[in-house]
């Protein structure tokens, strides 16, 4: 569904953000990136990241020990 998926499982701060930024940079405006993480801190962090950079958080959900985010590149 997403244009690209980033597996950030097992990575700790700030690596999920750094990897996500790297992926978004190579995507076109309007494309979506799914991120799967295990770091609970990634919930507030990806929200802060989106608010600050102007990218859009389409979905943020918890699935057992996994945190899944769907971000649309808009910035």
């Amino acid at each position, binding site marked *: 569904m997403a244009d690209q998926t980033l597996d950030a499982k097992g990575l700790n701060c700030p690596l999920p953000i750094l990897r996500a*930024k790297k992926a978004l940079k190579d995507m076109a405006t309007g494309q979506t990136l799914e991120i799967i993480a295990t770091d609970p801190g990634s919930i507030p962090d990806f929200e802060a990241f989106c608010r*600050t950079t102007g990218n859009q958080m389409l979905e943020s959900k918890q699935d057992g020990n996994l945190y899944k985010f769907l971000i649309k590149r808009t910035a």
Partner: protein
Amino acid sequence: MANESQGGAGASNAKSMSIIVTKGSLDWAYPPFILATTAAAMGVDVTMFFTFYGLPLLLKKLDLQVTPLGNPAMKMPMMGMHMGMPNIVGMIPGVDAAASRMMKNLIKKKGVASIEELREAAVESDVKMIACQMTMDLFEYDLKDMIGGIQLGGAATYMEGALKADINLYI
């Protein structure tokens, strides 16, 4: 809205941050590199000024050790609890090295980036890194032993950037 691709040149409308990096131990190298790389990922122009004991963090070959600084009795997780070694123990040759190995193992096990990895990310995301010329002279460091892409400068160079920055940290 931040510009996705600009560097640390400062000609943009992006927010900016300066960090003075003065400490060169394994533990204290983390805060500046974590903040710099995250800020850069969020579209902030970042300048890091490496001075005094922070300067060796620019050496190609890093050999970082932990210190008891700010960590009373050097508490570390061991055998399911937080054990403290009296700091004097850390003074015995070999114990610092053992604590450093323990920290490096924890770092790997917990999915925490290495300093080398974060430094590389900083370079890739155009974080501007300035080596303090005075510290280079004082402690006899040579630019050829340091990573590429860094610039030389002094206090006036730092001040010009800091006066324009939104966040200024001294670490």
